[in-house]
């Protein structure tokens, strides 16, 4: 068995490398079933984290976990980004928080599970954190194994609250009274 390469912080200077235009637009533009997930990332003092990077991974609406290439689809003429092609559902999104620690993701409902997988990176965070944004109005919510296993207070930190038509609010607290339940997979 080989030993793993240790993690290191993403630092403050990933801006030209990791975020890409349309990174938060997993849903094809104008899709009638698109849902919006948005929220803020907070530190232990309750302050917004303006230099966090969030990644999202989910099954397609039909439940496929195979993913599709093309999240970062490139223009070989200019070296720029073309955006997703609107046909393939890549299942992957990447959004940097803004100056107010806020992010917005537009995607389609995941098939077969009631959650989006979230990976959190930030300056000051030496090892990324996994969590989940649960869609409480998803038909599979009540039957989900983690939903059933968690005590209600911790589960509350994973619930993306409906906030109007197809809009869900999911805040992440890295530390403190409202600390999000972060996950490790065994």
């Amino acid at each position, binding site marked *: 068995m*080989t030993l793993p390469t240790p993690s290191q912080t993403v630092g403050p200077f990933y801006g030209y*490398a990791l975020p890409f235009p349309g990174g938060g637009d997993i849903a094809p533009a104008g899709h009638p079933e698109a849902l919006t997930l948005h929220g803020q990332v907070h530190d232990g003092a309750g302050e917004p984290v303006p230099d966090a990077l969030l990644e999202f991974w989910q099954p397609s609406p039909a439940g496929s976990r195979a993913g599709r*290439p093309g999240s970062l689809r490139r223009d070989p003429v200019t070296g720029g980004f073309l955006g997703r092609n609107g046909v393939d559902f890549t299942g992957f999104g990447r959004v940097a928080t803004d100056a107010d620690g806020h992010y917005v993701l537009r995607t389609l409902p995941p098939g077969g599970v009631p959650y989006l997988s979230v990976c959190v990176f930030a300056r000051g965070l030496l*090892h990324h954190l996994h969590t989940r944004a649960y869609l409480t109005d998803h038909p599979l919510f009540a039957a989900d194994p983690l939903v059933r296993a968690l005590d209600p207070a911790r589960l509350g930190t994973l619930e993306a609250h409906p906030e109007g038509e197809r809009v869900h609010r999911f805040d992440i607290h890295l*530390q403190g009274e409202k600390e999000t339940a972060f996950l490790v*997979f065994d």
Partner: protein
Amino acid sequence: MTLTQADVSREIAAERKAYATSDAVRHHPDRGYAPYRSSVLRHPQLPLTVVKDPEAVELSGPVFGVTDVTELDSDLTRQDHGEPLGERITVTGRVLDRDGRPVRGQLVEIWQANASGRYAHQRDQHPAPLDPHFTGVGRCLTDDQGQYAFTTVKPGAYPWGNHLNAWRPAHIHFSLFGTAFTQRLVTQMYFPGDPLLAHDPILQSVTDDAARQRLVAAYDHDLSTPAWSLGYRWDIVLDGPASTWNEEGR
């Protein structure tokens, strides 16, 4: 009172001693590592929730392909009309899982400071020159052996605000994907023999000596190209739960 390198070095030594006297083997940094001051308010204090679910979505992961990279992306010296200043280097190695199997066709992303130690980023305003021909960003897909390769220039050290006279050793940031989202890794590659390694709380946050050594690339003379570039080799092993790396056919 101003925090000095001597203060931080004392804290680093204390953290390392505490680790050495514990029975734990820890490959990754403790997220709450006080010598790196920015970690203090940005790490969870409650235990992580253990998920034992063979159906967890995180045991699968995003995929990338030929549409996601251009040919020039792996050569950071050819992305502009002119050549960047600095010592040209090639950095190559393999991306493996914990069973030692190659991670094939996956995305590797890098970013780094220029040869003067300045990032192309508005927040880096320290008095070192920007290089108009260097952004410091690269991408490639691993090949069938799990191999990646980049051509770039050796990054410079740069000052930062952790404490008085804090300098980051030269490093290249790496972002890696495995076959499962649980294998995701963001890390930094360092250069052998750098005198700043011992002073740096970010590298030293890896308190296990052998693990920390795995973040330092090897100079490999066979990878150096006559009259062209110096070669460094750095293999990367992605961590992941047992259910990922024991499962056949992944």
